[in-house]
């Protein structure tokens, strides 16, 4: 006794076909539901009905020995496959996947996959989303609008799925030969359908992409189909559910099919029979209002009317996605496309995140970690343990990369002890400690990818996308580079470039320079590609140089101190990165302009003068002149003190060695009356407190001219010239004896 087979050609992630499918299943009441999906993951299907399962989720299959070789099959609320699976569980029907097992796809060697991708790219537009292709051909932007206009609202055609099957038969009529993989897939499905029909007693519903309907309906000999399946690759695979996000639905992967506008699809699904246009426009309005735009209810009514008029003008029964978009731009966004683009990401893509039940089998990230722990011979231990890595050795580099990646995933198994100091050197000191909750955190990261490398990259990319400030962004790029995540690094550098171009805030431009210099140096130690960055850094230096004079004006004390720190760090970075000389010259010119700019905050002007002095671009005489002028009695004491602090803070030692400079300062100090001197005392203290005791003594000695020759501050004891030759001979003897051993 064989069951009767009913084929339902659907549009992957098509809310229209999902709704019709549920209705059709309700009417048919099949005993078995077969779904196009990897046959070896069938046992996971009933979990879709778990109340803890929140869409979007993805079926994740990966090769056991290499989780990077993985494919995802996302499901959204409005995916017909998801609705079919839920229907089957609710009604107790048998539920099965019938497509080629995942082991086939994952077992294929790289060459095959590349071929397949190429083949798909050729066949893509029609075979992948035939309904979308038909819609595009009819001048629609959106397959769903076409589906509802042509398939659902056309009273002439009979039952919907028959109409779809007819359309596909026509489309496939003049098809060229199928790729081997496509042929095998359809053969596999035919075999499975036949098997199910034999086993079951009643209706068997087959839910598959519309494209496959004609091929599955065809009668072919079982033997011929078996022949097609011979010699297909195989590998051990594992399958599980992974939480998914709406933005990722928008990307093409597996059966994902790249939903163009998940937000719109979800809306169409949620609305069912309600007024789709009005509610969509209300949603648009709400988003616009949230962003602070003023949109009145009357405008929404007008948008609705315009949408209807546009649909009439284009000969469509109801306003679809394109009409509503244009109406929203004209009536709600004041015609500004930019305003629409601004809200469209939120509206069309959304931010929904899926969740999976706790009972979901194993997590590939944990497995990947275990494997990498084995490879790198790092054991998770609950006790704290120090670890020193030499980055020149392969094993050291591998361990360091793993630890950095885990840090990017917010799994701080290792903490870098001398962070900030060891960069650019070949040694890293870690403190390792494994906490049990790390495993949980790791599983949460499944959202970003199925291996540690992928997930870390994905997570950093997300963080970079959200980062508004240039400095922290550059730090993220550095982290990505240290963790050897090339995709995230590339993305980050591109983001840096855009951000750098759009900012004119001197402070944030300066803040970006130190991490960038680090990256440039790291690039050498880590053999990463830094070419792009090497071009970007000079550009930022030029921009910062142009922005500096404006940034240094009218600052209060805390802001000036902050800018001073940034300026010093940036200058150090510029020297470190060894960039082109004319760019450096531009930077120095900016410093010079700063120094001579009367409007610049004094502290900053002092700092600029000091940097130039250190770079030997300001001669000692000039510096002394400058100091004398800046510190002359005509200058208000507060300003003079600011300049003084800018010049000397953290560089008090200069005074010991530099007599001209010292003279200038000395002369200035002597001009101060008692009151101003007392007022400036804390400042002097701050400058001189950086000197240690010996240095302070040497400075005093120098000031009071206790010594005139080379060894300033030290006096020869009496008779030293007689004793010295004997001492020297003994020292030499000791030294040579040491060398002989």
């Amino acid at each position, binding site marked *: 006794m064989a069951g009767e087979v009913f084929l339902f050609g659907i549009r992957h992630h098509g809310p229209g076909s999902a709704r019709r499918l549920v209705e059709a299943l309700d009417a048919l009441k099949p005993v078995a539901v077969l779904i196009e999906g990897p046959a070896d993951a069938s046992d996971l299907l009933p979990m879709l009905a778990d109340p803890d399962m929140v869409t979007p989720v993805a079926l994740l299959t990966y090769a056991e020995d290499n989780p990077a070789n993985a494919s995802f099959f996302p499901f959204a609320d409005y995916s017909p496959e998801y609705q079919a699976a839920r229907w089957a569980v609710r009604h107790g029907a048998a539920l099965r996947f019938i497509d080629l097992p995942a082991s086939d796809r994952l077992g294929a060697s790289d060459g095959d996959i590349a071929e397949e991708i190429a083949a798909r790219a050729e066949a893509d537009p029609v075979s992948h989303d035939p309904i979308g292709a038909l819609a595009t051909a009819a001048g629609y932007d959106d397959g769903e609008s076409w589906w509802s206009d042509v398939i659902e609202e056309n009273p002439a055609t009979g039952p919907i799925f028959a109409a779809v099957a007819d359309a596909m038969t026509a489309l496939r009529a003049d098809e060229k030969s199928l790729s081997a993989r496509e042929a095998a897939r359809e053969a596999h499905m035919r075999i499975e359908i036949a098997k199910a029909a034999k086993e079951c007693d009643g209706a068997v519903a087959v839910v598959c992409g519309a494209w496959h309907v004609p091929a599955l309906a065809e009668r072919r000999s079982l033997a011929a189909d078996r022949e097609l399946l011979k010699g297909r690759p195989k590998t051990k695979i594992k399958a599980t559910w992974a939480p998914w996000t709406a933005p990722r639905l928008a990307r093409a992967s597996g059966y994902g099919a790249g939903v163009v506008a998940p937000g719109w699809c979800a809306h169409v699904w949620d609305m069912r029979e309600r007024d789709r246009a009005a509610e969509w426009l209300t949603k648009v309005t709400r988003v616009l209002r949230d962003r602070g735009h003023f949109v*009145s209810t009357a405008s929404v009514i007008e948008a609705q009317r315009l949408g209807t*008029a546009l649909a009439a*003008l284009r000969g469509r029964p109801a306003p679809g996605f394109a009409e509503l978009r244009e*109406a929203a731009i004209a009536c709600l966004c*004041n015609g500004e*496309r930019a305003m629409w683009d601004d809200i469209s990401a939120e509206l069309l893509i959304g931010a929904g995140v899926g969740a999976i039940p706790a009972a979901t089998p194993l997590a590939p990230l944990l497995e990947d970690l275990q494997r990498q722990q084995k490879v790198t011979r790092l054991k998770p231990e609950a006790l704290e343990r120090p670890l020193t890595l030499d980055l020149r050795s392969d094993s050291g580099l591998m361990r360091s990369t793993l630890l950095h990646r885990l840090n990017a995933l917010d799994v701080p198994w290792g903490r870098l002890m001398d962070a900030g100091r060891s960069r650019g050197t070949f040694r890293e000191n870690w403190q390792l400690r494994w906490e049990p909750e790390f495993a949980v955190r790791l599983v949460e990261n499944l959202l970003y990818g199925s291996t540690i490398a992928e997930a870390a990259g994905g997570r950093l990319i997300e963080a970079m996308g959200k980062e508004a400030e240039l400095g922290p962004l550059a730090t993220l790029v550095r982290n990505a580079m240290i963790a050897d995540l090339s995709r995230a690094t590339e993305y980050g550098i591109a983001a840096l470039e855009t951000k750098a*171009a759009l900012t*004119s805030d001197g402070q944030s431009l300066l803040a970006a320079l130190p991490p960038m210099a680090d990256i440039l140096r790291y690039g050498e130690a880590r053999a990463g590609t830094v070419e792009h960055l090497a071009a970007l850094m000079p550009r930022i230096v*030029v921009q910062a140089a142009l922005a500096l004079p404006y940034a240094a004006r009218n600052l209060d004390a805390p802001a000036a101190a902050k800018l001073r720190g940034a300026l010093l760090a940036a200058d150090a970075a510029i020297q470190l990165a060894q960039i082109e000389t004319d760019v450096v010259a*531009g930077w120095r010119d900016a410093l010079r302009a700063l120094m001579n700019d009367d409007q610049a905050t004094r502290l900053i002007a002092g700092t600029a003068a000091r940097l130039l002095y250190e770079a030997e671009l300001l001669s000692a005489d000039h510096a002394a002149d400058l100091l004398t002028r800046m510190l002359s009695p005509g200058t208000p004491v507060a300003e003079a003190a600011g300049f003084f602090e800018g010049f000397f803070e953290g560089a008090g030692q200069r005074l010991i060695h530099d007599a001209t400079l010292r003279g200038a300062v000395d002369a200035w100090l002597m001009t101060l009356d008692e009151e101003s001197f007392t007022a400036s005392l804390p400042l002097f203290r701050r400058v001189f407190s950086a000197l240690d005791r010996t240095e302070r003594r040497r400075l005093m000695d120098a000031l009071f001219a206790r010594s005139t020759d080379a060894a300033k501050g030290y006096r020869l004891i009496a008779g030293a010239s007689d004793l010295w030759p004997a001492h020297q001979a003994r020292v030499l003897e000791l030294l040579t004896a040491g060398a002989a051993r």
Partner: protein
Amino acid sequence: MNEKLRLPAEESYAAELKALAAGDGHRPPGWALSPRQVVTYLMGGKAADGTVITPKYVGDKRLIETAVATLATDRALLLLGVPGTAKSWVSEHLAAGITGNSTLVIQCTAGTDENQIRYGWNYAQLLAHGPSRDALVPTPLMRAMESGKLCRFEELTRMGSDVQDTLITVLSEKMMPIPELNTAVYAQRGFNIIATANNRDKGVNELSSALKRRFNVVVLPLPDSAEEEVAIIVKRVGEMAENLDLPAPKNVADEVARVVAIFRELRSGSTEDGKVALKSPSGGLSTAEAIAVMIGGISQATFFNDGKLTPETLASNMIGAVVKDPVQDTAVLGEYLETVLKKRRGFEGYYASLTDLI
């Protein structure tokens, strides 16, 4: 031979309009063509009898569809865009296509008052017979309301905000009260308003929100591709130079391409290859301004430079177009020169002379 310098659209394209009108299609009340025929009239195509319709607007068809659909719903249409984006041209042809009459125009300026929008008085009549309908002098708006035609407002934002707001009642209630006579003019079916306005210009009055929300807004963009823009400018510069009796130097096309490249990059906020993002100056940098820069440069070349068009002569004209805000725009231009133009071949002259000028 016609003595008029330029004919209105409905006369120049009378044959096309007639051919289109011969076809069928549902026409909203007062329309001479169906909405779809109006779109064909603007975008070009074929009439039902095979007559070729020339394209009047080269660009995105969706924009024209939105504009026509707006007018079909009795909502007023506001065409927005920087100068030189064919706003008035589109408005004229829309009026010609829809009602066959594009001559009901009110040119708005800072000096436009309410009498020019609503109605004026014939004072001789007024003194002789007192207030009456006969003493009223109708404006294009009033005539359009009474005859169910389209009235066009050119440069709506250039008239004062208080005068703009006279339109609110007309747009929402489709009637214009005449309190002096205790009566009102009611708009006939088919009446509507098309307004054009600059969204980025000095000397304009912001539309009040009350008025703005009575319009559906369509923004007409600048030309998409550099080639298209260069072609428009070369053609227009040629025509204008001829009009002004300026001999056009040989290298005009090359220099236009360079000026357009600079304008487009500054305007769009990124280099043409998309690799470097830039800041944009406060001015619009429209195609029309590029034309003005070229004409200025040619004039300077003719009278002061023995007819040689050089980057130096163009640069001084360009500064005026780019730097509208002396502090902000100078910084933007300076950054552009240092980060982009400095290293680009063929632009050395522009880099040197622009750097000198700022």
